């Protein structure tokens, strides 16, 4: 805490003002579309089509939200089912992705074993391949496995995102001191224990970041080619169906986009406030 106070104190007042106003300016650019989206969500339908468009809402109304929930309530599958699907996929998918990519990243970063370089290069290369082209082949494989029309078709491929692995590997390589691992090994800790008790706490900022990405990705998952059963489809898919209902649904669409933004933002704020400055090397006395 002392260091923090001093760092702030070190800079001149003018410098602070300059940085603040710069951030404010950029912040405003980024917030404007968001403000517009929120204000549109409260616009009555007739106000939505005014030309030129008004930035702020004149007569705020909650109609859009009620029409959204009305539309969701009329759907063939209950709204809560879509919500359950999305939450389920987001939570399980994120947890699996973080654990599996960290598990794989640890030996790649900290142990040179036969073939580790090859595995790593393969993974980086796979990042660059588009999933569009493999779509057909993917479908064939998933159907052979019998995963079509089940969560597995979304979850299992989602577990193995290469970017997460790459991030974790890079992080472990630069932040986990070899000497901590060595002393743990001398004290008789097994690798499994070292991984969970030493490596993971040190790279906490990395996996909290990974949670943000991964959750955002799963949460925004729309309809895809592997799921046909209406009971298994996601909230995002349901909402995009409602939105595509045309002009009359424009208000509901604006309301939906605002509501759907909330969970990723919440996850972001929660994870960010959980990151305390880690003391990667604080245990070390050289």
């Amino acid at each position, binding site marked *: 805490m002392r260091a923090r106070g001093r760092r702030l104190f070190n800079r001149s007042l003018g410098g602070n003002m300059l940085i603040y106003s710069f951030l404010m300016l950029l912040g405003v650019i980024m917030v404007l579309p968001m403000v517009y989206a929120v204000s549109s969500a409260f616009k009555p339908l007739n106000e939505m089509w005014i*030309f030129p468009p008004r930035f702020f809402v004149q007569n705020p109304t909650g109609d859009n939200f009620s029409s959204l929930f009305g539309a969701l309530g009329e759907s063939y599958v209950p709204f809560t089912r879509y919500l359950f699907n999305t939450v389920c996929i987001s939570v399980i998918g994120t947890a699996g992705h973080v654990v599996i990519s960290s598990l794989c990243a640890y030996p790649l970063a900290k142990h040179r074993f036969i073939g580790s370089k090859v595995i790593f290069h393969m993974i980086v290369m796979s990042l660059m391949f588009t999933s569009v082209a493999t779509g057909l082949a993917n479908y064939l494989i998933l159907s052979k496995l019998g995963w079509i029309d089940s969560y597995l078709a979304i979850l299992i491929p989602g577990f193995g995102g290469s970017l997460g692995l790459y991030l974790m590997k890079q992080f472990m390589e630069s932040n986990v001191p070899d000497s901590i691992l060595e002393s743990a090994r001398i004290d008789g800790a097994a690798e499994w224990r070292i991984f969970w008790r030493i490596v993971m706490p040190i790279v906490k900022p990395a996996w909290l970041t990974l949670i943000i990405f991964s959750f955002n990705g799963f949460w925004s998952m729309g309809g895809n080619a592997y799921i046909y059963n209406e009971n298994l489809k996601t909230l995002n898919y349901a909402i995009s169906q409602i939105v595509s209902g045309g002009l009359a649904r424009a208000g509901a669409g604006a309301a939906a986009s605002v509501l759907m933004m909330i969970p990723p933002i919440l996850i972001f704020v929660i994870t960010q406030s959980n990151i305390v400055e880690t003391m990667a090397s604080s245990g070390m006395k050289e």
Partner: protein
Amino acid sequence: MKSKGSRKLLNYRGRRNLMGYFFCAPFILGFVLLFATAFAKSFGFSFNEVITDMNGYSLEYKGLEYYHYALFVDPEFVRAIVGSISGLAKDLIIILIYSLFIAVLLNNPMPGKTLFRAIFFLPVITTIGVIATLELRDSMTQAAMDTTSQSVSMLTGAEDLDLFSYIESLLSAIKISPSMTNVIFEAVNGIYHIITHSGIQIIIFFAGLQSISPSIYEAAMVEGCGRWEQFWKITLPLVSPLIMVNVVWTVVDYFINPTNEVMQKISSRFGSGEYSLSSAMSFINFAVMGVFVAVLLFVVNKFIFYENK
């Protein structure tokens, strides 16, 4: 791995290898099963014509025909690839510098830090998240009903258009010439593009900055090191491994983004059932991108500092 028998059979190095494979097993299993197989299959498709029928599909060998078509016959494909590479080269450096800059600024202790961070995180949601997918799907219906340009205003991603037209009418109201406003808009549009594409990079740099121990800065300050020097001598070297991640992410994000011209060509071919051609195009795109990334990583790797090596 832990049983006594294997401990006797394997020496230290052997156990170490086994441990590595054990930790990587879930990932590699999925990788081979889902990615490598699909990859190999599509590679096969790119040399064959895929004929679908009631019982599935059959293949007819065509050799390099599809590659030849993509590279020499299709008038737009090569141009699209060249265009995307030159566009990327321009953006990449600006995005990296901008995102590191913002991350360093936002990492400073100051009131309202979390709020600022959340604001800078917003583009991640709007560009790769929910809004983007909603908007993408909607753009199809829009094309049909887009008689009034107003229907664009429905979802956030397209919002800037309205915002611009709003500002434009404002500027013309105070008698600023259209050519002048065009210059302003191009600049603003460029900024907006960079800002919306740097969200993830900023967060990755955050993670790097947060894991730098404050005691290093304290020691530097005791030695009389100013903030400028601190940045170049401490912050930059310690976050440099993440520059690699960000380079890879930026390139991949750019090339694989559905709005990329090359990707649009590939998906439209795929959508119209020309699986072989779209595979061949993907592999060409993949090869080009692979070479691009390899060169970049080779260069960037020279400047990276690994603390524990």
